[in-house]
């Protein structure tokens, strides 16, 4: 298969969704403030880092709905990923919140570390981890197709963000495409 067919699309969208997923960190930083940078600049930066990615996420969902960018997902097995959110919370938000930003070098190191994490989240397609979804009652599942005779059935898992408590084998869901691997089930 060519590179065009092998690589996942919507790269910029996925990057902004990753930024959206780390936006709570900037809320915490905005509350804490910073002794190095005047509040009006630091707050403005934090506001941009919270509003812009989440506005984009909202726009992506809206565009998917307007364009009817949805597909049928058939469930073979589904893994519940509630634990991912906890890992995300404790492994990322809290350490960064607790990080000392009192010197320029500390601040630069923290920003670099955030850059690495954003890259990893983006590269590993972890852009579905988002506290906004959790706050609105959505759960995250990784769905794999049922075994069948067709050689064309997708081999990889797809991330489904849904309000369902359970996703059962054999379920056929219709969900909006946020990226090539992340789908949002809204209308039930």
């Amino acid at each position, binding site marked *: *298969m*060519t*590179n*065009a*067919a*092998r*690589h996942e*699309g*919507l790269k910029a969208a996925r990057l902004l969704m990753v930024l959206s997923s780390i936006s709570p960190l900037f809320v915490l930083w905005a509350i804490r403030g910073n002794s190095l940078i005047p509040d009006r600049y630091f707050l403005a930066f934090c506001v941009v880092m919270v509003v812009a990615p989440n506005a984009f996420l909202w726009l992506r969902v809206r565009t998917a709905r*307007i*364009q*009817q*960018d*949805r*597909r*049928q*997902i*058939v469930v*073979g097995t589904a893994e519940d990923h509630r634990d991912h959110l906890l890992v995300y919370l404790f492994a990322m938000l809290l350490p960064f919140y607790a990080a000392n930003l009192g010197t320029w070098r500390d601040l630069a190191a923290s920003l670099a570390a955030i850059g690495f994490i954003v890259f990893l989240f983006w590269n590993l397609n972890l852009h579905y981890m988002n506290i906004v979804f959790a706050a609105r009652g959505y759960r995250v599942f990784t*769905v794999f*197709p*049922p075994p*069948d*005779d*067709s*050689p*064309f*059935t*997708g*081999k*990889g898992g*797809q991330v489904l963000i849904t309000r369902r408590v359970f996703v059962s084998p054999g379920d*056929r869901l*219709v969900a909006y*495409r946020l990226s*090539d*691997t992340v789908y949002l089930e809204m209308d039930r």
Partner: protein
Amino acid sequence: MKLDFDFATVAVTEFGVGRDDGEGERFLLVPVDGEAQSDLREIVATTWRNMQELEPTPRRYEPAEKHAPSEHFYLPIGDDLAERVRAVHQANNLTVAGGTLSDPANVFCYFVRMTDGQGRRLTGLRRANQFKGILKSRLLRFVSDALTLVEDDVFKLDNDFDLLMDASNVHILHPSGFEFVGHLQDAVLRAVPENGKAVQGDLTFVEFASIQTYALKHARAARLLASIRSQDEGKRIDKASLKRHCKTNGIEIRETKGKIIVPEDQVVGFLEVLDRRRYELELVKGSPERFKAGSRQKLAK
């Protein structure tokens, strides 16, 4: 014949392409916007309308038949000959690859998959003739009163699909498209052992081993064998009548220990007799004429 699908309650319309990059065929979904989805649904509806206008009660597709460019046939979805297209219809959670059209040279077909309110699926498949052809063409469009070259990548959809598939049947509108996308040649050759075994079971007085060996290497014989099997009339064939028809039509066979032996150079002719494609007319007294039917249709009366 009805379509097992409700056009009024379409819940999902997905578009995709089949591509062959030398590592085997793959079928990938390509996201399309609402307007394109609407057009695709219209093309599917047009395809079904065209099928109904051509023949509301279609005949079963026969691989040995010579077909017109547009004819309405059906094939049960579980038929061996539909194996390839069935795999596309029944595939779940196809990979999404929006970027696949940035390299469209290896796209050999495109398809639409629709799901209705009851979760029933309808798939339309089309060989990528125009879709591909347009890449090599230069397109012009009017801007004010002057024609200018279209510089964007443009993909042109055809007016109908080669075939539609629902839960029960493959509905064929363009047989050549079905044969291309469904790899029919490979399918009939692969099916020779099974078809040979089935026909041998019905015609126990014919030695089929040599016919089968020949058919494994010759697509025409393999198609005839598949067609004979699909008619399911073998058990009722009378040995004496078969021998008489072979003689009348110039097919040289011999009989050993009660079994009809068909020499290699007579296999196709013999299979054509079995497939009701050889006949003789004597409208002019004393001048019998032999004919071979590339296409024929059984009459009810």
